């Protein structure tokens, strides 16, 4: 079972939550039960209730974050270090939330989380503002969000956390290679530095052999 949070209250959460819908579809296609906490349902009460009721093996956070917190809808804290990180004990976590792998991630591992993949710095992406009615058609955002989704796709296919992280790193490198080969000024000056940034700040903590 997989739990996915999809807050949706600003451009960033709109884009990443929209891009995460392909993950729930892939899991469903593979007969894996998925519970999605979208919009206002991405709140702490619902989150803790679902964790208790269905005990998902994999939790996929989309949203904002800090070094000690993962947030839900309208930045309501879902997981706070020193408060409720034990909710993630025994689970594999992928957190597409800025900074959360810096301090919260290691503490989750200390408290029994099997593996925690996330970012030790801000996750940065570019997006095309003309695609606001359909963020999934935004190929610029896709350069950044496809490597992120690669983590979840790989985990759903049964790969280990280490392999899933490696697949994502490889996906980043494929995007970097494409941009270098393309060689235009926007790609080189604008997108490339931030792809490097996201790739280099993505970490996998805990058991490298953990899998669904």
């Amino acid at each position, binding site marked *: 079972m997989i739990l996915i949070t999809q807050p949706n209250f*600003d*451009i*960033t959460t709109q*884009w990443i939550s929209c891009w995460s819908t392909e993950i729930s579809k892939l899991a469903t296609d593979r007969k894996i039960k998925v519970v999605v906490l979208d919009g206002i349902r991405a709140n702490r009460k619902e989150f803790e209730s679902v964790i208790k009721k269905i005990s998902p093996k994999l939790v996929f956070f989309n949203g*904002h*974050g*800090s070094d000690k917190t993962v947030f839900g809808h309208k*930045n309501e804290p879902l997981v706070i270090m020193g408060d409720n990180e034990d909710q993630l004990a025994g689970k594999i976590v992928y957190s597409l939330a*800025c*900074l959360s792998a810096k301090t919260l991630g290691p503490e989750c591992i200390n408290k029994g989380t099997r593996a925690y993949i996330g970012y030790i710095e*801000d*996750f*940065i*992406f*570019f*997006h*095309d*503002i*003309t695609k606001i009615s359909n963020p999934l058609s935004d190929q*610029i955002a896709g350069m950044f969000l496809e490597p992120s989704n*690669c983590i979840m796709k*790989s985990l759903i*296919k049964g*790969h280990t956390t280490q*392999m899933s992280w490696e*697949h994502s790193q*490889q*996906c980043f*490198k*494929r995007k*970097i*290679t494409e941009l*270098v080969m393309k060689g235009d*000024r*926007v790609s080189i*000056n*604008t997108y*490339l*530095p*931030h792809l*490097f*940034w996201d*790739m*280099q700040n993505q970490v996998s903590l805990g058991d490298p052999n953990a899998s669904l």
Partner: protein
Amino acid sequence: MTQEEKLIQDIVIARLNTMPSNIAISIGNEGEFSKKEIIDHVKNNDNIGKKMIEIQLSYLQSLKNLTDYLIPEQHDTYHTA
């Protein structure tokens, strides 16, 4: 600001100036920024501007090992995973 810091700031602004006008940047909790807004942050040398400088410098330093980050198509194992 030293001459060197000013030079780096100018380089980052020049690079960000290539952003198309329909593209915006999302920086985690900081929010979303248009080309003009993000360049203004760099000019103001505030926290967001400093982050942009850090990212560009980190990238430029990575260039000496660029080949470590490139994958020839035949070595791309993801699609067979």
